[in-house]
């Protein structure tokens, strides 16, 4: 009894971990299933068929490719725009600064369903065709907000004296930015970009409003598939995405730790 009491925190932590990981484990396990019938809901027989042929279901890899493409373009564009906004907001006092802050916050606070439908209305009114272009515009818009938040937090911790020191040592404004400011802001920009990518990659609601029949993203494909039975390949891709995310996080942690060890 006393032993349990002493390790209560460890038990609680373990329980939370299990709670959070069970869905991923289930997905991973069922990616090796050979389902009986259309639905992959009960484990039938071990098979690596889906792993050896991940594009085996019609349209799945096309939708995955589209999602990756949109995610990359949206997150990189948002990273550039968002970083510039973050520097402006973090470094300068100007008219309209607080209004800009508010506008940046809006997409994060607005329900997606409202944003998706109003964007569709806007695009229809302006004659912007639905499809990949419209989805990209929408994704870049909400991704910018998240990049701004991540980069702004980093910019706030940057000592402006470092830029003065660079100028004092003969670095012109471009060199100062490339050699001092940008490397120091990089962790914030990287975090913002990763966040933007994952938000873009799994967005369903806003995407669905602005998609055309030729622009089926991966989340839309999965959602569409649930009605007729989700193909095992979806579980495979899901597992790979989870492992990639895990890899990114662990790598980030290791780099951070190594840097901290150097610091300490």
């Amino acid at each position, binding site marked *: 009894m006393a032993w349990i009491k002493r390790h209560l925190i460890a038990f609680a932590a373990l329980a939370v971990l299990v709670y959070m990981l069970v869905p991923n484990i289930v997905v991973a396990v069922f990616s090796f299933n050979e389902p009986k019938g259309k639905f992959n809901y009960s484990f039938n027989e071990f098979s690596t068929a889906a792993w050896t042929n991940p594009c085996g279901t019609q349209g799945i890899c096309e939708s995955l490719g589209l999602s990756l493409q949109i995610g990359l373009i949206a997150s990189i564009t948002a990273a550039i725009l968002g970083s510039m906004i973050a520097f402006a907001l973090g470094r300068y006092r100007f008219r309209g600064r607080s209004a800009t802050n508010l506008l940046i916050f809006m997409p994060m606070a607005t329900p997606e369903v409202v944003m998706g439908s109003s964007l569709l209305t806007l695009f229809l009114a302006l004659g912007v065709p639905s499809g990949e272009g419209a989805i990209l515009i929408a994704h870049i818009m909400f991704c910018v907000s998240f990049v701004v938040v991540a980069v702004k937090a980093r910019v706030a911790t940057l000592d402006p004296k470092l830029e*003065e*020191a660079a100028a004092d*040592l*003969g*670095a012109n404004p471009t*060199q100062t930015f490339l050699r001092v400011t940008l*490397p120091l802001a990089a962790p914030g920009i990287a975090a913002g970009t990763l966040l933007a990518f994952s938000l873009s990659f799994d967005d369903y609601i806003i995407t669905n409003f602005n998609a055309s029949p030729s622009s089926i993203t991966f989340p839309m494909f999965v959602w569409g598939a649930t009605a007729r039975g989700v193909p095992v390949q979806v579980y495979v891709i899901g597992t790979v995405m989870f492992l990639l995310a895990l890899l990114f996080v662990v790598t980030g942690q290791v780099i951070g730790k190594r840097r901290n060890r150097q*610091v300490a």
Partner: protein
Amino acid sequence: MDTSKGDLSLVALTKSYGSFTAVQPLDLTIEAGSFFALLGPSGCGKTTTLRMIAGLDAPTSGRIRIGEKDITDTKAYQRNVNTVFQSYALFPHMTVIDNVMFGLKRRGDKDAKRKAQETLELVQLAQVGDKRPTQLSGGMQQRVALARALVNRPDVLLLDEPLGALDLKLRRQMQIELKRIQQEVGLTFIHVTHDQEEAMTMADRIAVMNAGRLEQLGDPATLYEMPRSTFVANFLGQSNLLRAQVLGGPSDDGVVRVRSHDTELEVSREHLPDGVTDVWLGVRPEKLRLGEAGGPNRLRGIVRDVSFTGVATQYIVEMPWRQELTVVQQNDGTARATLGETVTVSWAAAHGFALDASQDAEAGAELVDEHG
């Protein structure tokens, strides 16, 4: 010294922020190769002056020249002037050697690595080139910041309270070290500080600033022996200031007689400003002697406090008009006094200085305490 280098001159330099004037018209020439100190309490305009020389702040008016070259309108990165910042401002994402090479690389110096390593040796940090600045102690970071500026061999090297963050012992050590390095490399150093002792220890010449104005310019001994204002008299060391009236012209031996609280005293002619009759007669505590051996100027008072400090003893002697004089006596076995004793305090005419009495006798005194 090649001809492109030269004296730094500030000509009627001013800086205003809205209605607040941080630096009043300032004219100053700083000789090439000298160790110059800008000394004053916080908010006196010394750091603003430094930032204008560095190009980090633009002057409101006036010119800055190095030798014949006017650099007033050039940017910080175009000036051959480097700064050691108070917070060091080392680049945390670079190694120590990369920090030191930063300036050389910007100029495309092919020999950057060797020069940087040599400069690290000069500041006695040859071993830490591969470390990150944050892995070093404050004193070591300070040396890196110095090396990073020194390595560029600037026309002028600016030091903005560089020893402020170090503890006392390390500060003393770095003062000697900085002086050694300056003499070794022969560059012009401009050192901004509020620490009068630091300024006097290190600098060849000191400009004392107060409220955006230059109070006095001179070598440490002149500033100390012949302050020209009560501010300088109080800010650089301690002063006993006696109210006195001038009794006439100088006598043949070059002394002027003054009357202070019904006692006639004398002061050297050259220590008296022209055309003033009401003066503060100043004497440094260590120039006063207990007994009559100090000179013809004599005052009698009662010892109110005795504090032994090791090499010296400090006495507080109360005058009949209630003013307390501070007397510092070397512990050389002579001239002792005990609490409550009535004593004579004496000093020579050459050891006093006179200041215009229209000034506040307390100016600068409280600022010394504030900074410790």
